[in-house]
């Protein structure tokens, strides 16, 4: 099994659980804290949300409605989807009020 720390783990504005120092030796196992992905969700999806940035007004609804927390802001406050976290459900595309997100087949990316 891969150790959690070897797995790519792009940031998603994650707020990992802050472990109390008195519990530093517990649990004595390769337990990963919250906010880590032991295994990528890449293989879960067959569609990918492609976001058209030109007309985006950063309304944040796509971020709100993603059950995975897979969308975050880039430096220009435009939404980016984290490759390893997205499951391709399409909710962000359904909820974008400007229809800027197209679900395209994963194989056509």
């Amino acid at each position: 099994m891969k150790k959690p720390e070897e797995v790519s783990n792009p940031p998603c504005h994650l707020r990992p659980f802050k472990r109390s120092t008195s519990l530093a030796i517990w649990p004595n196992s390769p337990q990963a804290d919250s906010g880590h992905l032991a295994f990528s969700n890449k293989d879960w999806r067959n569609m990918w949300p492609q976001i058209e940035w030109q007309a985006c007004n950063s309304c944040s609804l796509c971020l709100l409605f993603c059950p995975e927390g897979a969308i975050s802001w880039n430096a220009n406050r435009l939404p980016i989807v984290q490759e390893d976290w997205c499951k391709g459900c399409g909710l962000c595309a359904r909820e974008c009020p400007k229809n800027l997100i197209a679900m395209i087949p994963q194989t056509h990316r």
Partner: protein
Amino acid sequence: MKKISIKMLPDDEYFVGHKGCGGCGGSLILRWTLKALGERCHIVIPAGCMSAIGFIYPQMALGVNAMIAPFAATGAVLSGIAAVIRAKGLTDIPVVGFAGDGATADIGLQSLSGALDRREKIIYICYDNEAYMNTGIQRSSATPQGARTTTSPSGQTAFAGSKKDLLRIAAAHGIPYAATASVGHPADFLRKLDRARQIDGPSFLHVFAPCPTGWGCATDATTELGRSVVTTGLWPLLEWDHGKIRINQAPHSFAPLATYLAPQARFRGLEANQIEALAAERDRTWVALRAWERETTNSVLA
């Protein structure tokens, strides 16, 4: 205390890396709940999908103190945690239960009843996906009439009864606050969560949470179903606040039931007369609801 609203939600995530199915309504509500309540929150999740997808070795999807309760014991565990927090004089820790419909309406009902009776400050959230999803889509007492499950394959159940009315059950305990909400209306849900966390005592939220896997709908239908279930009148948005019931959204006319039923495979076998029966049941519910609203707003006690 900062008010909870969509705008005020922080970027921080406290429920990520879970293994819920794509488009899972329950996991979206849990994500919002923890974003809103923040890192001091202590959450109790009984056996069911959210514990199965949230606590997966070697990773923990929850970024707050979280605990799995025995299936029947969410209410009891919540009361215990709340009592300890009270005894220690802590006031900034929301104690939240997050349980499925099976864990709430069936096996955990007596435990919930006890917790509501003890009047500790807790927020009990039932995410209702209308069946026992984690063990393979078995019918629960919150499964609506006509819905196909693996234990009611034709959609016809041996029981003629309709969906168990959890809001009335909670309200009958005389608790200060109880409400229904839906994943299709996040602003309404967050407003109710905000109200619940300010209540000094138990509060109960019953939230509509579509399950694409169990319902046979598209993974991107979750939020749309969360709206059409309200416009068709099948899921009234209600608020029980200190003895008064308020209907938050009272449609003048209901949208055709097909807008809600057709996208879901679990309702595919319904005959026209069964759909009429569903509509009749809904109409009776609304008559009773309006009467309840009149009764409680005019009551001298309220």
